[in-house]
């Protein structure tokens, strides 16, 4: 199989399989999770300012008092790499083209040099966070295989995409194919790992906020 054949495969059958498993997994898990439900809380709600699902959705995006100093790498690194990922995924012209093709939605692209910078910053932040996870005994203790695996599954698409654009290590065609393959692996594992937080994040925050809000606790 030549580089171009490999690329055509990942753009064709590979993408079809990956998107299929992704959609299957996402809908499966969303239906499963949201149909779980909970028994109705019959107690009278205690109203407290700032205690609601919506408040929690936003509040959980900010570090609780004192935590930023206690664990700066987690918060700052987390912010930087999530924003960086968003810039790279949604700002790069070829990505927007794919999204337009699949969904019909499109928006103006960012200059590729800026996206390139965002990719480098994202990878740096992710690397620092990985080092922190290895170095901090508590974090290391709490880490399971899934944590290391999902880190790699997220990091590889950024790395291979950046290397393809920069023409590093392998010919562009092969690296582009590896990039698309790594994204396909990410799509396949996303619904079945903690990466599914991309879909459940706000729902679970709302849920927690609502339960605690009912008890009058602004979390």
């Amino acid at each position: 199989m030549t580089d171009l054949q490999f690329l055509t495969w990942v753009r064709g059958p590979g993408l079809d399989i990956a998107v299929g498993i992704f959609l299957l997994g996402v809908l499966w898990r969303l239906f499963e999770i949201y149909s779980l439900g909970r028994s109705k809380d019959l107690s009278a709600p205690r109203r407290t300012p700032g205690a609601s699902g919506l408040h929690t959705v936003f509040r959980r995006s900010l570090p609780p008092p004192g935590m930023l100093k206690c664990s700066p790498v987690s918060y700052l690194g987390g912010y930087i790499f999530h924003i960086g990922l968003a810039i790279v995924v949604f700002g790069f012209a070829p990505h927007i083209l794919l999204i337009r093709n699949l969904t019909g939605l499109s928006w103006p692209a960012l200059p590729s040099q800026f996206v390139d910078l965002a990719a480098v910053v994202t990878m740096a932040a992710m690397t620092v966070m990985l080092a922190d996870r290895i170095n901090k005994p508590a974090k290391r203790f709490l880490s399971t295989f899934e944590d290391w695996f999902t880190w790699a599954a997220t990091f590889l698409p950024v790395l291979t995409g950046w290397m393809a654009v920069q023409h590093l290590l392998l010919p562009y065609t092969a690296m582009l194919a590896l990039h698309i393959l790594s994204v396909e692996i990410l799509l396949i594992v996303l619904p079945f790992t903690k990466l599914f937080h991309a879909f459940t994040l706000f729902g679970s925050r709302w849920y927690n906020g609502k339960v605690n809000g009912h008890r009058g606790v602004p979390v």
Partner: protein
Amino acid sequence: MQGSLVDAFARQGVSRRSFLKYCATLASMMALPPVAGRAMAEAMAAARRPSVIWLPFQECTGCTESITRSHSPTIEGMIFDMISLDYQETLMAAAGHQAEAARLNAMQDNAGKYLLIVDGSIPLGRDGAYSCIGGRSNVEMLKEAAQGAAAVVAVGSCAAFGGIPRANPNPTGAVSVSDIVKDKPIVNIPGCPPIPVVMTGVLAHYLTFGSLPELDAKGRPKAFFGETIHDRCYRRPFYDQGKFAKTFDDEGARNGWCLFELGCKGPVTHNACATAKWNGGTSWPVESGHGCLGCSEPDFWDAGGFYKALSLPADPLGIAGAAAVAGAAVGVGIGFANRAKQGAAKSAHETTTLADLEK
């Protein structure tokens, strides 16, 4: 510098100076040192005239057209004056048994020394019966001719990689030269057709140094196929700025913006079009407003469509809809099962243990 070739050129209105300039250009295009231009000119003028056998197989003659009719009068075409082209169906006067006899004679007289040029793919289906010359299949002729060849030059994408005949579903079972010939040095000069100067560059290199130029992993001369169209494209700055033509007649197209969104395969295509250009340096596909088709890459015909951008799916997504429905059905099914479990636990007054929470 004297020689029959120089005289022949003079008769056709090509001065010695033009010839030297041409050789210097060839040398610089092949990234050879400046003195190589002079060496090339001398070697070609000396006209050692090595025997060349050109076998046309499953092809359209576009490659021959490209080299002979690039522009007129063409120095590329005159390269034929410095070789002894003993067999070339399109160009030779002989026909039928005479032509076959000329080929066999050349092969016998120059055994182990002649250069074999092949254009066209080799069909293997039905014992090679899809393409025969003089009642003999292409694969048979290639094996026979390759045996005594010093080297084989596969001209055009069909000979180099199978090309259009090999496109899915490949009804004739077409393969490339390198699929058949394993024990001889092979140079692939792909392109549909290849750039004339690339063909002459390889021949000139062989005549001058007696060896083949440095090749890449796909057997292509690195000097011409070392970089992608995209990397050498004059429209590249627009790609970097995110300025793309969306249709062939919009403002972006008129402003000469990048053709990536219109399906240009420049980023994955290795060729010299952007630097050598076509028709005597007049223009090249991207300059004339059409994206690169990727014709110098293996299986370019089946690479997902000429007008589909590289970042788009090569085929329409087939299973996505069914997968989404299946996913929703599984989710709803498990949802009902969970509800039933909850109901059963409730009616049995089961309590939640710590172990349950760990699940």
